[in-house]
């Protein structure tokens, strides 16, 4: 029975990984049109490296991800800290914070689009950052909140009793204790932001596209080895981020993602 289960698990893992491996391998394939292997080349990567549009997309992606990560980490940590207190309307508050995680991406994207349109705000990198901060805030809050649950509040109170001003107590006692949670929340936020397509699609301005948006428009046009190369690069970037998350915070990878 265990052998059968193990074999099945193997098949599932192959189904998860085989397409990715095939895609990576074919990003080094010479032929532009054929799915047959004709020879090794780095041409597609060279083309990417010299493609100004891709550079601009990468730059936009990084701008949106980094700014929204900083904002979301600040706001999300605050949200999680505030949720430790008991207050009226706490359940409503918890629902509000978790809402962006609960609803499908397209709902948040379309709502923000409706808002910007209603207010007559032209979409730009700023509106994309606002959108990313909104969903990232929720993820950071959830991760930090999990970390805070394991924290003994009496230590903080002791620091304050001993005369530390609240901000100092936070800086010296609370923050070091929850830092792994804050860092993993930030890395998660950056990763989600870097990979996001749907919400960016609805909220960013013309000419402010990101790498995932480039993939979307390219794939709808035709399947080419350049897309394989670009996808491989994005994949590699994600892997670097995961490695960073594991190294800096020792979080179980099972902590988040979507």
């Amino acid at each position, binding site marked *: 029975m*265990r052998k059968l*289960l193990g074999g*099945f*698990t193997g098949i*599932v893992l192959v189904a*998860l*990984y*085989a*397409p*990715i491996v*095939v*895609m990576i391998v074919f990003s080094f394939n010479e032929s532009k049109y054929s*799915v047959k292997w004709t020879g090794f080349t780095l041409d597609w990567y060279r083309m990417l490296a010299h493609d100004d549009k891709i550079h601009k997309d990468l730059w936009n992606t990084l701008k949106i991800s980094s700014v929204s990560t900083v904002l979301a980490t*600040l*706001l999300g940590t*605050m*949200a999680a*800290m*505030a949720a430790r*207190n008991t*207050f009226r309307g706490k359940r409503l*508050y*918890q629902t*509000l*914070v*978790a809402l962006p*995680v*609960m*609803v*499908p*991406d*397209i*709902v948040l994207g*379309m*709502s923000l*689009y*409706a*808002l910007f349109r*209603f207010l007559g705000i032209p979409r730009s990198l700023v509106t994309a950052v*606002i959108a990313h901060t*909104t969903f990232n*805030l929720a993820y950071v*809050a*959830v991760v930090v*909140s999990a970390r805070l*649950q394991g924290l003994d509040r009496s230590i903080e109170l002791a620091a304050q009793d001993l005369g530390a001003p609240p901000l100092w107590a936070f800086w010296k006692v609370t923050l070091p204790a929850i830092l792994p949670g804050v860092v993993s929340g930030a890395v998660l936020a950056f990763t989600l932001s870097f990979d996001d397509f749907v919400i960016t*699609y*609805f909220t960013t301005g013309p000419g402010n596209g990101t790498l*995932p948006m480039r993939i*979307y428009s390219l794939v*709808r046009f035709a*399947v080419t080895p350049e897309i394989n190369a670009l996808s491989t690069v*994005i*994949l590699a970037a994600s*892997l670097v981020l*995961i490695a960073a998350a594991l190294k800096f915070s020792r979080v179980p*990878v*099972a902590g988040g*993602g*979507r």
Partner: protein
Amino acid sequence: MKGRFLSLLLPPTAWLVAFLVVPTMVLAGSAFSADGMRALAHAGTWVLFWRSFWIAVVSTAVCLAASYPVAYFIAGCSTKWRNLLLFLVVLPFWTNLLVRTYALKFCLDPIGWSDTSAVIFAIVQNFLPFMILPLYASIEKLPPRLLEASQDLGASPARTFWKVTVPLTMPGIAAGSILVFIPVLGVFALPEFINERTVLIGSQINLYYGQGDTGAGSALTLVLMIFTILLTWIYSRFRKSEGLV
């Protein structure tokens, strides 16, 4: 103390009100327009909702059937293998969904598999980790004593599975199902990659959005949102919630 609490509470709350609550209200306002009402009165819209619903149901069921043996196997491994396998299962979903879907398309197109069943396969492949993790978490907590007791009392392995294991892992089954079902219901871009003709509600919203018909797009989005919130609410009735989620 109170001042400090408020200074923590206000900024995130203000942000969420401005960019989550207000947008939802604007969305609702835009949905209750002539365009929005016309879209909702259109029978085709409900056909799409029905199709999205069914694809989500089937995908969730296939996901559950494929994940249960995997989660069960992982839970029975030694710690070392367990961590490795969990890592391997979770790793893909830290990577870009479009990239993963494109990779799948790249492999499926040449063999000519691109109908609705391919779309479901792609969905299952993408959302598998969401199902395996919660299942694993609840299978891992199963007290072995109960399984032994059931067998000692003469139940066959199949009977033990259906009468003991499955009921006890219901929280994992429910959590995994909701985590797969909700995003699949509003899935967008993934079906288009595999098969252009499998139009689901997400693609239709995108179509209206592309045509500049914000009223119709908002109406469909609002229905989708109400439906998912309702589902989450029903789900939360059945489980005790702690912390933020």
